[in-house]
């Protein structure tokens, strides 16, 4: 577990494009072998403890399917 950030993937919205997996600088995410009802292989969180909350995955998801939640600081934002 990661006490700072939690990542939520919406299985109904995800289309398995793997952009989040490729863009994550810490290899937190990977593609799973499970498909959602539409047949898309989903992204999944494999190493949550490594997440640094950079938001790159969320900002680059074309389907608004991944969300980074800050557990300690409510002001996490897209602003650098």
């Amino acid at each position, binding site marked *: 577990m990661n006490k700072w950030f939690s990542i939520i993937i919406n299985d*109904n*919205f995800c*289309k*398995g*494009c*793997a*952009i989040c*997996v*490729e*863009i994550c600088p810490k290899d937190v995410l990977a593609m799973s072998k499970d498909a959602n009802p*539409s047949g*898309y292989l989903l992204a999944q969180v494999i190493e949550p403890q490594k997440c640094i909350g950079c938001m790159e995955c969320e*900002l*680059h*998801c*074309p*389907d*608004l*399917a991944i*969300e980074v939640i800050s557990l300690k600081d409510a002001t996490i*934002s*897209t*602003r*650098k």
Partner: protein
Amino acid sequence: MILNKYLRPEVFPTPFCPGCGHGILLQAVLRAIDELSLDINKMVFVSGIGCAAWIPSPHFAADTLHTTHGRPIAFATGIKLFNPSLKVVVISGDGDISAIGGNHLIHAARRNLEITVICANNSIYGMTGGQVGPTTPMRAKTATTPQGNPEPSFDLCGLVRGAGASCIARATVHHTRELIKYIKKAFTHQGFSFIDVISPCFTQFGRRNKEISGASPAEMILNLKKLCVHVKSSDELFTFKQNDKILIGEFVK
């Protein structure tokens, strides 16, 4: 998600192909609105026809107008003249805005009409089957130029600058934080503002041009980092030349 309040949840998932850049632009526009605390009920989003025209309509929980091919800027002009208190935003594709509706674009820029035009530029006609367009790079393969495009492409930022636009930027969906910054600038600019947003289409462009795009939608988005050069000053957006590189940056008069 913080963007939920701007969305119509019942229309998701989006109609876009997996990994389409347009979804990234969709959220960037909403994040700009959120960061500026704009009232989305006082905004009108106008789009034409094509994949990019689906960015605001039906996803945004706001007034949206999905108009005929190439004409969103004409409709937007009417809305702005009728009710100048509304913030009017055109979001549509490169074929729609620069080819079929190219005349509307240059005259809105010339009039310095206070609207924002966001051009989701995937350099091809995506929805209709991948035909060559005026923004297709030279030598790129499309359904109608299988041997490579023999014509040079349009620099849309240069075009609107020549027509008199006062706030111009080019960004990509890879450089999301900059993209949000430019959209915010455009939304607060008094006068005509234009953003050329490079938004990859793997389905129609990428899979025909894997040597420049990479092998997947994700690679195509990541490759933008290598393909782009940030200009140092605003004039360089029009004067600086580097072979096969996309110039990104802003120009404000």
